[in-house]
């Protein structure tokens, strides 16, 4: 008997017991679809986190910040200078593995006002024009300040969309997009001119939801309930985008001269930077670049280790760890459901061969060998698993859609080809394993006893 005949017989047998076969397949269908859906959810999570990682500047970005002086250098504390522009110039000249350097001088507390409206942005800082590239900002209206603005320490600033929303009105409230370029605002009571505005940053999911809400508003013109995408969904990684929108940049020298050099609250000039952001030339040279920067900084800091490197690596490691955990636990749960499906197949195959002892006896009497019977039963079990697996792949699409509807997450689940292949492959493997024992049992039947069986 060739394999084709065995497969034909398998299909006939399954077709003859349609309802029973369907119930048996159900286990495999659910197992496969939960496996695929689980990995789609994890994949969506991973994508969302990667998106957020890119939004905060990518893996190549490193922030140099002030740090407490280590205990063994405490006696040098009065010599410590903190991060200054010396570090920036030193790195520029002596650290070729660092490709982009941006000094950051933050100011707190800060109050922006326009007319009667006030706003405190999360991050207001004096910096260089390179901050645009460093922090992956995109200017939507106007322009970024340039080196001349910096050189002349002009009172200009570039704002994020949150500042515009707070001082001039958001598109959701006013119904139109306001371009604030050219307007004048007060930053801590000093007049500044807005020369540019960044685009509104949001996650993929928020963008979709906003598009949907807009569509809804257009269709039902009288629909008063406004859907605010950013407030409707504050879970997960979207806080990264909100912080990014709440940014105000002004030229480095403006910050220094207008706010710091004249003395802050206590009248003492404060030349310290709140940090220096650098981007290394390539991720492969990350460790080397860090070492190089460290050497330079040890020199500019007179050997006092009052600085530290904040890399995104920790963040990315915790992302990978949490994704690994999610994948692991989800995988185990789905594997269990697939296993239950397999046990269902084995159970039904055992029942089926008990029912068909006489048939097996007849087949053996007219010349079926051990192998023929074994293959026949095994093929039947594999065919059930195979059909169940295919149906499961189909169902997984529906399941993912259902999951999206009942639990709106930040991240759209993504069904990958690999996960489908993996789930389908395991369903076939389960079919083979589940069919093995029943097939062996059937093939071992003694034809004489099988023929006498009632």
């Amino acid at each position, binding site marked *: *008997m*060739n394999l084709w*005949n065995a497969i034909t017989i398998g299909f*006939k*047998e399954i077709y*003859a017991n349609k309802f029973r076969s369907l119930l048996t397949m159900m286990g495999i269908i659910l197992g496969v679809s939960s496996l695929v859906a689980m990995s789609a959810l994890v994949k969506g999570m991973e994508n969302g986190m990667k998106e957020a990682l890119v939004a905060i500047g990518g893996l190549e970005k490193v922030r140099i910040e002030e740090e407490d002086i280590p205990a063994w250098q405490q006696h040098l504390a009065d010599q410590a200078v903190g991060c200054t522009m010396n570090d920036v110039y030193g790195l520029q000249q002596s650290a070729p593995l660092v490709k982009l350097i941006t000094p950051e001088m933050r100011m707190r507390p800060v109050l922006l006002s326009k007319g009667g409206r006030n706003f405190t942005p999360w991050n207001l800082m004096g910096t260089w024009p390179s901050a645009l590239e460093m922090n992956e900002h995109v200017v939507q209206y106007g322009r970024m300040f340039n080196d001349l603005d910096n050189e002349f320490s002009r009172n200009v600033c570039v704002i994020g969309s949150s500042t515009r929303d707070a001082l001039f009105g958001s598109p959701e409230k006013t119904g139109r997009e306001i371009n604030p370029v050219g307007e004048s605002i007060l930053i801590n009571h000093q007049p500044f001119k807005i020369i540019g505005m960044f685009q509104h940053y949001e996650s993929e999911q928020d963008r979709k939801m906003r598009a949907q809400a807009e569509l809804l508003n257009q269709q039902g013109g009288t629909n008063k309930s406004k859907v605010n995408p950013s407030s409707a969904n504050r879970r997960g990684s979207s806080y990264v985008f909100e912080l990014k929108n709440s940014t105000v940049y002004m030229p480095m020298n403006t910050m220094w001269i207008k706010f710091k050099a004249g003395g802050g609250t206590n009248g003492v000039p404060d030349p310290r930077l709140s940090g220096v952001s650098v981007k290394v030339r390539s991720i492969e040279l990350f460790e080397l670049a860090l070492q190089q920067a460290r050497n330079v900084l040890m020199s500019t800091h007179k050997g006092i280790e009052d600085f530290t490197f904040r890399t995104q690596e920790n963040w990315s490691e915790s992302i990978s760890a949490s994704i690994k955990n999610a994948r692991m636990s989800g995988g185990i749960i789905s594997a269990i459901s697939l296993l239950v499906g397999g046990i269902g197949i084995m159970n039904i195959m055992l029942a089926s061969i008990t029912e068909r002892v*006489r*048939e097996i*006896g*007849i*087949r*053996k*009497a*007219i*010349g*079926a*060998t*051990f*192998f*023929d019977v074994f293959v026949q039963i095994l093929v039947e079990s594999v065919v059930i698993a195979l059909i169940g697996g295919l149906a499961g792949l189909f169902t997984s699409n529906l399941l993912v859609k259902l999951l999206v509807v009942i639990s709106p997450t930040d991240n759209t689940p993504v069904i990958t080809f690999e996960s489908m292949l993996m789930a389908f492959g395991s369903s076939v493997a389960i079919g083979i394993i589940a069919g093995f024992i029943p097939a062996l049992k059937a093939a071992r039947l003694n*034809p*004489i006893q099988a*023929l006498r069986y009632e």
Partner: protein
Amino acid sequence: MALVELRNVSKIYHLGGEEIRALDDVTLDIDAGEFISIIGPSGSGKSTLMHILGCLDSPSKGTITLDGTMIHNASARQLASIRNQKIGFVFQFFNLLPKLNVLQNVELPMIYSGISGKERKERAMAALKLVDLENRSKHRPMQLSGGQQQRVAIARALVNSPKIVFADEPTGNLDSHTGEAILNLFYKLSKEGRTIALVTHDPEIAAVTPRRIEIRDGKIAKNVDNKLAGLGGTSKFVIKE
């Protein structure tokens, strides 16, 4: 050389330390083209003899040759192949597969001998024609009468052109009229040169066959040629010559 040669064949079962000789030192020859019956009461060992002759079982002692092949020490795989190629079985309860139609049932032995679909169909139809059922090929066994089902079973037994056909109580589940038709069919097939062995407990049926072998307590009790012994006319079954 005879088609089947049994030499000192015994089949011994051990039940709870007790030795049961289902067959005890049986020696028997069946020639090609013979029509014989194996008769004996229940428990006499006739079924065991048929199982051993039919390669469903192996003897404990002795040698068997079928068509020149030694089968007493063949492997399970070889036995399956011999059953498929050289032996046809007809059973008391027909033993057709209810989920397959008549044609598919007859094709079944050829599936296991690896014959292609087209040839399978042609040969199955030819075998059905032999038993006058070619117009029932698409029916299910359950849609046929007992006699028709038994004829399908006979067609299935003949489809691989076996050397010998074993029929185990082929009329046991049929009324006497239908049984007579089946016996006539066997007689006709025998006339065409096929070797047929009927296993029965009924002397009336055994009387139909030219040669009969009587088994008692695992031994051959008589080995009588019915016609020579003048017993040919004692059967209630009428065989149309």
